[in-house]
């Protein structure tokens, strides 16, 4: 596979399912933004620049409630903290000789939970020089589709029937369940998924704001320690 073919492979992979699944999520976001009185420009701008659906939902909901600027900023930025471990674990896989550093910083901007999960599934099997092109081809495609879907959702707001909206929202977690369990790589990953699945909801019951990062830290540390104990 040449790097050019890898770009195209990433593009094709995106249209296999991820672009549709994420797209319907952003249709939901666009219609929510419209119903909460945001302008289409702001809805679209948030998809391009923040590019993290949970954070964008927080922004719209808190803005509607009239929360102060600093409180909204903190809540959104806090929810984006998941990008730190995602970027740390993904980037070493994308590294290839002779690639300028700024491309990795750009890859950090287009990184999303979807592209992370897809990359962690496919990239270890690929040759180094095609990994970054594959990732960018994939990530930029779902970024662009999500932007179009934000605008479409904004325009369609109010005309989507309830059952359809429900299926749209439900598609997202299902997609992650399938992609994370499709080809499990290694005992450590299985342990981490199981521990996270147990600990995340438990922390959510006690400290909802901390469920994502706290669940990751607690569940991931437990998995790491368990995995090491068995290894010795």
């Amino acid at each position: 596979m040449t790097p050019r073919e890898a770009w195209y492979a990433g593009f094709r992979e995106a249209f296999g399912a991820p672009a549709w699944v994420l797209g319907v999520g952003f249709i939901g976001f666009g219609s929510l933004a419209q119903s909460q009185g945001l302008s289409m420009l702001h809805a679209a701008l948030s998809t391009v620049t923040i590019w993290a659906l949970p954070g964008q939902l927080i922004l719209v909901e808190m803005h509607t409630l009239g929360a102060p600027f600093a409180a909204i900023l903190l809540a959104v930025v806090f929810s984006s903290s998941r990008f730190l471990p995602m970027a740390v674990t993904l980037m070493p896989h994308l590294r290839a000789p002779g690639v300028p550093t700024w491309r990795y910083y750009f890859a950090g901007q287009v990184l999303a939970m979807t592209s992370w999960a897809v990359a962690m599934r496919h990239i270890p099997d690929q040759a180094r020089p095609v990994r970054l092109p594959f990732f960018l081809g994939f990530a930029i495609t779902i970024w662009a589709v999500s932007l179009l879907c934000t605008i479409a959702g904004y325009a369609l707001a109010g005309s989507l029937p309830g059952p359809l909206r429900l299926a749209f929202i439900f598609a997202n977690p299902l997609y992650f369940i399938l992609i994370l369990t499709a080809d499990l790589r290694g005992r450590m990953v299985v342990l981490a998924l199981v521990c996270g699945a147990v600990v995340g909801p438990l922390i959510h019951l006690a400290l909802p704001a901390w469920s994502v990062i706290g669940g990751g830290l607690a569940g991931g540390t437990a998995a790491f320690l368990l995995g090491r104990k068995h290894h010795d």
Partner: protein
Amino acid sequence: MTEDFWGLTALVLGCAVGSYVWRGLGVWVADRVDVESDWFRWITCVAFAMIAGLVCRVILLPVGELEQTSLVRRLAGVAVALIAFRLARKSLLVGVLAGAATLPILGFLG
């Protein structure tokens, strides 16, 4: 252009810059980490556990519109998605469509 327009623009951009701090910091750290180290294995565990926890939480304890559906129906949707995915030779589209359609279909059946 109203004051709210520019205020909201500044808020969106501020949130984007704040989010990018995590993204950029991750790229920066990745450049300086040994992938064979325990530290890297630990952060990989954290990343996978974080996503698994989030997804599991959405199924078990949803907020928003999914809250109106029963847990049994959501779990039925997950089971249908997993089975359809395997039957369709790991087609994500088939799995997701079948699982997502389960909720409204069960809704229509009462």
